[in-house]
């Protein structure tokens, strides 16, 4: 190859060609059940007992044009190819193909035949050993390209297209609502095709920018519904509707003009329409119109002052229709109007102060269902930040944000019936305070140390109804508090080594106040989630430019819990454990060593070892049972599960060796 390519590895004035071909042989030993083996390869194609993984790069660079090619893992389900080329200053073409696996659980089980298809046949039975196995796994294959024309500057034209095919199986569930008999976790077929095209044309030259954009997306699902054998479920529960075909297009105009005093006016106006249909309800005509208007005025009239004023209007207007004799229509529509301003002030001694205010007005309604209602919200948001880099060896930043959310119910008492005293935290009145501080220190050259802290607390307030009277406070999420702390260090020790490390800590506390209508008594739950992680690594240049040792270690630990406060006697739980102490608890760590030897200027080889461990425990999945007796709405029944997300723990050893050739 080097004989064929002219000017190999040489920087000639006319043409530069360089590239790299690399291959790594890996032996992988994984210990774990189906859930663990899937978790190990969640987004990767790492074959048990290993394989040979390639990587390639080709760069051709001439004074007027260029061509680049990249590929990783050819032949595997996470392979990637990208070809880019063009003429400088004139046009650029990019073509790519990408595969993304998502593995959830291998060797899931079901008594049904037909996993992955739209018909499931089988008679419920508890003989799990005879059940059929399949994988909960999906794979995306995406190909596309883009073309950017700059030939007629200041005019430009861009076009891009992507097509994504997603296939596989994901978990779903169906239940016998007629007789309250059985519950089935089932494999849902995934066979989606999404095609998207984007066109953009415009003019860009100071002081004016204009562009017109068209976006179109079409989603197709090969399966309309999933049919379940009547031996398991009777109609209508044995027909599960699947995501319906839909499409969406958007027309947009964007413009910007520079005005005197370093001021700029920008606008974005777009209209979109989405449609959908379904054979489940033939009279349904799904239609959504969506409007978006943005205007922003920015100004930097004097060097020390940045100012910004902005307004955004967004409306999602569901104009769907359906025969009311078949389905009672209730189509959700909302709109938001945002008004905001912020200022940045450059102060003496390298202080930079910013402050801003934003008002968001959200209105919600239901098309063709005036009786339904959700509240409107008015949010007042204030934020401020002070940044200081007055010392050459330190940067400091502190910030604060506050949000006050008001909730307006058109008819609060009518909505809060004894049957529905829900708070609906997403819409309820809220006051939120957030504080953050960051400091980066560079005491000597090549040493960076960073500390950061972020605190956020949301209190959900607002009115509810008790005894037919509106008043403060009600059920649901009441408090959400989060603390984040992080530390990082990077240090280059001359030409000897480079070390780096980081530490992250997060604590989340949630508090909910609830009322059980089944038992007629209140209860509360405190959830906490504590996560900490660290990473350390080092590159040691044993023989500079010849022999390098690399070391990397990553560790994450999460510990969650849900602690209940209730009267055990009222709930019939006297003397019994209630709290959930294994609540998405896991430890994930990996350690790796790699020795890299530069044989020649072009040839490099390496050998290494890596270990990965993921240990997961959760009360919702521990001591898993595929079949168990349950009580559905007071009636006895049976639940049949398939093992989705079961036993995700794994341990993996990887030994690898490889080489690369650069030309």
């Amino acid at each position, binding site marked *: 190859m080097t004989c064929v390519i002219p000017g190999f590895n040489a920087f000639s004035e006319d043409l530069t060609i360089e590239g790299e071909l690399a291959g790594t042989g890996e032996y992988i030993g994984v210990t774990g059940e189906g859930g663990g083996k899937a978790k190990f390869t*969640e987004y990767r194609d790492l074959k048990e007992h290993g394989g040979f993984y390639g990587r390639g790069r080709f760069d051709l660079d001439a004074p*007027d044009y260029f061509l680049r090619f990249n590929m990783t893992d050819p032949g595997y389900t996470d392979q990637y190819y990208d070809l880019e080329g063009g003429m400088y200053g004139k046009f650029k073409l990019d073509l790519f193909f990408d595969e993304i696996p998502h593995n959830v659980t291998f060797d899931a089980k079901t008594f049904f035949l037909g996993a992955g298809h739209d018909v499931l046949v089988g008679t419920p039975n508890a003989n799990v050993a005879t059940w059929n196995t399949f994988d909960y796994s999906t794979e995306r294959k995406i190909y596309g390209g883009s073309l950017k024309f700059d030939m007629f500057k200041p005019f430009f034209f861009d076009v891009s297209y992507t097509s994504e095919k997603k296939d596989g199986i994901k978990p*779903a569930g169906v*239940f016998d609502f007629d007789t309250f008999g059985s519950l089935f976790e089932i494999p849902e077929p995934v066979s989606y095709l999404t095609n998207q095209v984007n066109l953009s044309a415009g003019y860009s030259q100071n002081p004016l920018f204009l562009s017109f954009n068209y976006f179109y997306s079409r989603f197709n699902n090969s399966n309309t519904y999933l049919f379940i054998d009547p031996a398991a479920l009777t109609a209508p529960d044995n027909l599960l*509707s699947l*995501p319906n075909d839909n499409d969406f297009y958007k027309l947009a105009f964007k413009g910007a003009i520079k005005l005197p005093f370093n001021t700029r006016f920008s606008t974005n106006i777009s209209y979109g329409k989405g449609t959908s249909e379904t054979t489940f309800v033939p009279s349904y005509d799904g239609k959504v119109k969506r409007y978006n208007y943005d205007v922003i005025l920015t100004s930097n009239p004097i060097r020390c002052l940045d100012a910004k004023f902005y307004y955004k209007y967004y409306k999602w207007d569901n104009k769907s229709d359906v025969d009311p004799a078949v389905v009672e229509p209730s189509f959700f529509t909302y709109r938001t109007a945002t008004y905001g301003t912020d200022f940045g002030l*450059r102060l003496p001694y390298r202080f930079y102060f910013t402050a801003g205010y934003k008002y968001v007005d959200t209105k919600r309604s239901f098309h063709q269902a005036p009786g339904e209602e959700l509240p409107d919200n008015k949010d007042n948001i204030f934020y401020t930040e002070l940044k200081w880099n007055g010392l050459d060896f330190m940067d400091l930043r502190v910030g604060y944000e506050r949000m006050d959310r008001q909730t307006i119910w058109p008819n609060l008492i009518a909505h809060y019936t004894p*049957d529905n005293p829900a708070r609906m935290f997403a819409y309820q009145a809220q006051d939120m305070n957030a504080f953050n501080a960051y400091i980066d220190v560079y005491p000597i050259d090549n040493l960076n140390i960073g500390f950061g802290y972020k605190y956020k607390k949301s209190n959900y307030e607002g009115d509810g109804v008790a005894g037919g009277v509106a008043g403060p406070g009600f059920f649901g999420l009441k408090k959400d508090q989060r603390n984040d702390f992080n530390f990082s260090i990077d240090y280059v020790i001359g030409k000897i080594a480079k070390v780096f490390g980081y530490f992250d800590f997060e604590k989340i506390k949630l508090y909910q106040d609830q009322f059980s209508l089944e038992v007629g008594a209140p209860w509360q739950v405190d959830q906490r989630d504590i996560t900490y992680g660290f990473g350390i690594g080092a590159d040691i240049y044993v023989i500079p430019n010849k022999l390098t040792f690399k070391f990397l270690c990553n560790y994450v630990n999460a510990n969650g819990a849900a602690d209940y406060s209730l009267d055990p006697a009222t709930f019939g739980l006297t003397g019994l454990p209630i709290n959930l102490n294994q609540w998405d608890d896991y430890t994930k760590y990996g350690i790796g060593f790699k020795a890299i030897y530069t044989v020649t200027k072009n040839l490099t080889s390496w050998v290494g070892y890596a270990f990965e461990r993921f240990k997961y425990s959760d009360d*919702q999945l521990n001591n898993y049972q595929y079949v168990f007796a349950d009580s559905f709405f007071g009636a006895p029944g049976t639940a049949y599960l398939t093992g989705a997300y079961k036993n995700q723990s794994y341990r993996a050893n990887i030994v690898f060796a490889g080489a690369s050739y650069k030309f």
Partner: protein
Amino acid sequence: MRKYLLLFLVFSVSLFVLLVGFNFQSDAIADNEYVGTDTCKGCHKDYYDSYAKSIHAKKAIPGSPANREGCESCHGPGGVHADKGGGKGVAIFAYNKKMSPMERSAKCLGCHRDSRHLVNWDVSRHKTADVSCDNCHSVHWATKGKNLLKAPEPDVCYTCHKIIRAQVNKQSHHPINEGKVKCSDCHNTMGTFNVKTMLKADSVNELCYKCHAEKRGPFVFEHPPVVENCLICHQVHGSNHSYLLDKKTPQLCQSCHNVAFHQTYPFNKQDTFTGTKPFFKAGLVARSCRNCHTNIHGSNGDLFLR
């Protein structure tokens, strides 16, 4: 009252004059001359070589430094710098802390202002936060790949966004560390009309639907918070809970739903697989509420999203 008003006015005007005067101080070096790229190369060969290999050295691009003053297009005239025998930042524009972020960015914007990729730079959160071009990009020491980044994504973003790094490291995450999703797939770091988050769409949901079009609908039976904002239930970068949920089910659902039947019950340890006094195990184990309410994003078959 009038006295205080007068005092306030005098103070404001003085402060204004001081700030304006302070900000109009010029760092310009008088009587400086261009010396040519070959002179720069004499002392800075490594920098010259990296420049020569970069896109900035392409004469085919109108207005590129190769068609202008070469190195001095960005660093300013080097006459005085050379006469003084060089030195870091001596009589030359150097991309270091001696120059403010605004000054460093202004150098790049001098040529790139007309680019359609930078049309929203003035509205971007990065500009408001005083992030300069050279915080992320490097003409001389860019990593292999697009856009002259100092490090590949997401590492270059993690330099400042460390909390995002912590989230992406969690067990349920978008495949960012695996290299299948990049920060720039969702965010335009040069600014968009989504002022704070710089999303590449007019709303959160429109962005999500580009990869998750099966959730776009519209559906016959909708779940309003799904239609309004995916982030009501999901954490986008990473979560300890499956499906990138912000909170675990059933408590997530019980944050909003409290209607009679089964929703209002405190599903606890007794409702696990080994519980001896369960109320309704399927309300807690496996996928919890979604064991039955499987079409949680919207259904065409059932009002209760089944």
